[in-house]
C-alpha cells in the first residue's frame, strides 16, 4: 500500500479520531497533520507494520500525550495561520451547553486516560489493542479506563447532589 492509498482510505477517520483526542477541530487539525507528515516521511517503516493504521494511531496518541512539554505542539500553535481552517461546529450553535458537560469533563482528564476512553468507546478496540496503541500493559490500559470513568462520574454528579441538599 502506498502512502497515498492509505491517506485516501483513512485520513477522514484519523481526523475524527484526532478530534476525540484533542477535544476541538483546531487542535485536531494540528495533531493529525503533524502525525501524517511524519507518517508520510517515514512511510517505508510505517508500511512494514502489521497494521499501518494502528501504527499511525499509535504515533498520533504518542504525539498527543507528548505535547505537554510543548515541543512540536507549541510550534504549530504559533503558526500565524492557526485557526484559519477552523470550522464552527453546528452543534454548539444550538446552545446545547449542558449536553457538553461530558465533553468538558473529558477535557480535564489526564491524556493517557482520555486516549484510553477514545480507543474503547469511540474506536471500539479490545483491551489488548488499546494497550498496544498506548504502549502499556493490558492491566494499565484497563486501569486508565476505570479510573477515567470514575472521575467522569464524580464530576458529573456533584452539582446534582449539592443542588438537592438545599
Amino acid at each position, binding site marked *: 500500500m502506498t502512502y497515498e492509498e492509505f491517506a485516501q482510505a483513512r*485520513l477522514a477517520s484519523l*481526523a475524527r479520531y*484526532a478530534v476525540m483526542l484533542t477535544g*476541538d477541530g483546531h487542535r485536531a487539525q494540528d495533531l493529525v497533520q503533524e502525525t501524517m*507528515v511524519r507518517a*508520510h516521511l517515514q512511510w517505508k517503516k510505517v508500511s512494514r507494520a502489521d497494521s499501518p493504521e494502528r501504527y499511525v494511531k499509535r504515533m498520533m496518541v504518542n504525539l498527543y500525550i507528548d505535547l505537554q512539554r510543548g*515541543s512540536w505542539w507549541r510550534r504549530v500553535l504559533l503558526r500565524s495561520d492557526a485557526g484559519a*481552517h477552523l470550522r464552527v461546529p453546528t452543534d454548539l450553535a444550538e446552545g446545547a451547553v449542558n449536553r457538553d458537560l461530558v465533553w468538558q469533563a473529558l477535557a480535564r482528564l489526564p491524556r493517557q486516560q482520555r486516549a484510553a476512553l477514545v480507543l474503547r*468507546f469511540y474506536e471500539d478496540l479490545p483491551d489488548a489493542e488499546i494497550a498496544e496503541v498506548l504502549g502499556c500493559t493490558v492491566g494499565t490500559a484497563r486501569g486508565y479506563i476505570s479510573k477515567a470513568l470514575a472521575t467522569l462520574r464524580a464530576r458529573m454528579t456533584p452539582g446534582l447532589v449539592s443542588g438537592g441538599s438545599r
Partner: protein
Amino acid sequence: MNEEELRAAFARHEAEAPDVQELTNTINQEVRRRRARRAKVLTGGIAAAVALAIAVPVWLAQRAGIGPQTAVNVAASATGGPQKDLNLLLLGIDKRAGWTENTSRSDTIVIVHIQADRKKIYIVSVERDVLVDIPGHHKDKINSAFLFGSQESAGPRGGLDLMEKTITQLTGVTFDGGVVADFSAIKEITDTLGGVPMCLPKPVAIYRTPDTAKDAKVIGAGCHTFPGSVALALVRQRDGLPNGGYDRDRTMQRYLVGVAQKVSELNLLTDAGKIAELMKVKGLTVDLGGISAVELAMQLRGIKPADIVPLSLTNTYVGGKDGEGITAEGRALLQAVGAGTLPEFAASHPQLVLQR
C-alpha cells in the same frame, strides 16, 4: 453518566473533524518543505557535527602521525589491519561576536580517546577551573591555557597547541589532533543536523547572570531534540547547577552523545563528500587536512551512541577563587588517559561514567 452518554458525546463532535481535502494539501505541502530542508541538512555543515562528537577524531587524524605518510596505514586498517589508539582534544571557547582572536578561554575541555579497534570512544571532560601548571606560565586555571596560547596572533591554533601541551604535562597523553569550536559553531552544527537529541535528568534553568535568574527559562527534564539556540544555551549553563562546571561538563557530554546519535542516524560517516563539507563550518577550527580524516570517519561509522563512554572529574571545590583541585579519583582518571587504560578504569569506576 454512563457509557452510552460517552459514546453519544464522541458522536456529536465528529462533525468538528477538519476538512480532508484541506488537510491533504497542507500535509503534502509540509512534507515537501521538510524534504527540502532535510536535503539541505545532508549537504550542509554536517561534517562539523562529526568533528564535534565522535569524529572530532576524524579531523585531527592528520596531525599526530596520521599524515600523508601514514594515510596508507589508515586506509589499510579500515579494512581490518592493525591501528593505534587515537587521542583528540575538543575545546569549546567563549568567543562572542566581535571579540578578537586572543581574548577567549576554553570553558569546555574534552579529551576524545578512540580505541585501536575503533569499537569504543571514551570522552573525558576536564573541568575548566582545575588548577594546573601551564608550560611557560604560572600555575593557573586550565581554561587560561587557551588564552595564553592564542596571544600574539597565534589564534585558536596557538590556543589549542598550548592546551594540548598543558594536558600532556598533566596526564602524559599525547594528542593526534584537536578541534576548537566557538558558540556560533555549536549553534550552526546543531541546526545543520536538524537539532540534537538530549536527555536531561533534571530540569535546567537557563540564565546568564545571577540577577536574571528569576526570569530564567526552564528546560524540563526528559528527552527532547533541541535547536541550535537552545542546545547552545544548555551547554553554556553553569550557574544554578548543583556542581557548577562539573554538571555543565555532563551536559556537554550529553550533547556530544546526541550529536553522535544524529550523525549515526543521518549516516554521515559513510559519505566522504559530506565529511569534507563539514570542515567548512564557520567558527570551527580543525587542525588537519583531508584524506585520512575520511578514512577515519569510515572506520568509525559503526559507532553507536552506546559505544561512547563519557567520563568526568568529580567536584573538588576547595573554596575561594583560586580554582579547583583534583581528587585522587580524578588523578587516577587522568593517569588512565595517559596510560591508555580507560576501558579498565571505566569498568572499575562506574560512578565517574555519565548516567544515561
